[in-house]
């Protein structure tokens, strides 16, 4: 079984910390760390989405298209 998830410390300016603390009051976030983790995951995921898409080789793609035509998925 894995150990408890490891955490590390990141410093943010105190006024920003206070702003976040005020903002998360009454929301589902239980701590500033939770909120910061959520936002960072969201930001990183959207950056990754913008990265170039994986492309198949032409040969590979043609082979797939042949099967799709044979099965009636493509004309």
């Amino acid at each position, binding site marked *: 079984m894995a150990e408890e998830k490891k955490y590390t410390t990141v410093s943010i300016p105190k006024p920003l910390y206070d702003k976040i603390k005020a903002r998360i009051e009454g929301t589902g976030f239980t701590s500033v760390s939770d909120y910061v983790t959520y936002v960072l*995951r*969201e930001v990183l995921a959207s950056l990754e989405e913008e990265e170039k*898409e994986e492309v198949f080789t032409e040969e590979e793609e043609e082979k797939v298209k042949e099967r*799709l035509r044979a099965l009636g998925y493509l004309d």
Partner: protein
Amino acid sequence: MVSKPHGGKLVRRIVADRTRERILSEQKEYPRVDIDHGRAIDLENIAHGVYSPLKGFLTSDDFGSVLDHMRLSDDTPWTIPIVLDINERNFDEGDAVLLYHDGLPIARMHVEEIYTYDKREFSTKVFKTDDPAHPGVARVMGMGDYLVGGEIELLNELPNPFAKYTLRPVETRVLFKERGWRTIVAFQTRNAPHVGHEYVQKAALTFVDGLFINPVLGKKKKGDYKDEVIIKAYEALFKHYYPKNAATLATVRYEMRYAGPREAIHHAIMRKNFGATHFIVGRDHAGVGDYYGPYEAWEMFDNFPDLGITPMFIREAFYCRKCGGMVNAKICPHGEEFHVHISGTKLRKMIMAGEQPPEYMMRPEVFEVIRSFENPFVE
């Protein structure tokens, strides 16, 4: 643009022909591990990238992280443990073994780790219960005492009576691109379609380029529709009621876990790997009995801002006599006395009695197809 594969790269773990021949010619030299149908299907899904970024069965780090945090140890969202269990250790860590199903060698596995686990903890964390009446819990309790983690390579495809309807993520991605779909909504189902399903699917399709109906084939409960019935019923629906270039149907083999909210996330990840950008999450998605709240699966998505596929929460549809059509609770102002809810159980009873359901419940063409089967339900 279709969704990026989960974890960034579509996994394909299929050995090249020459290597395959060599491995098979040496098969007696490998320790043999026999696996059941459910694990064989998991293996197939790993090999074809349905479970990207997994390259094999979970090692203990990932397993523990999935149980405790619903993420792999590298922080990628992952909610259902994909594990291989054994009872006897006839091999060691570092060995390569061959995995067999029904006498057929289907994969080579590089054993990275053999570890023990707590079945009760597995159950309570994944299913939120350790009640043995829950089918997922019952399966976990019947599993072997050890888990084996490590990467796999597919040697042989499992026999598939529905190969014609089975598309892999690499194929759906090309298909969506060829059709010019940039946004695709996926619908997961285990049922023959009634009008309520059609309403939900078409409501979602209104907002995207394409609809991807992806029925799950595999082990079923008594009384469920048989796989071939689901496929034929959808074909009839497509032929008569769906725009040809805006919807497509392909099946996937998968063993339901009935893990409710956690499994809804898993279903969304699978469809992301097929290239879908959106995923329809229904009422009590992947639930069983009353173990989960009707909209608990919707709330679960709040935990994953980095999922990479957009859930579409569409309320249950029903027929309103006053509106004169299919509606949902959000758009219909009329009282319950005007509403007719479409119950799967009621439909089944009508079908078994040879009674045609009203058109607002089931399309006549769909009913005709179902009726053409001597027994459309699993016995």
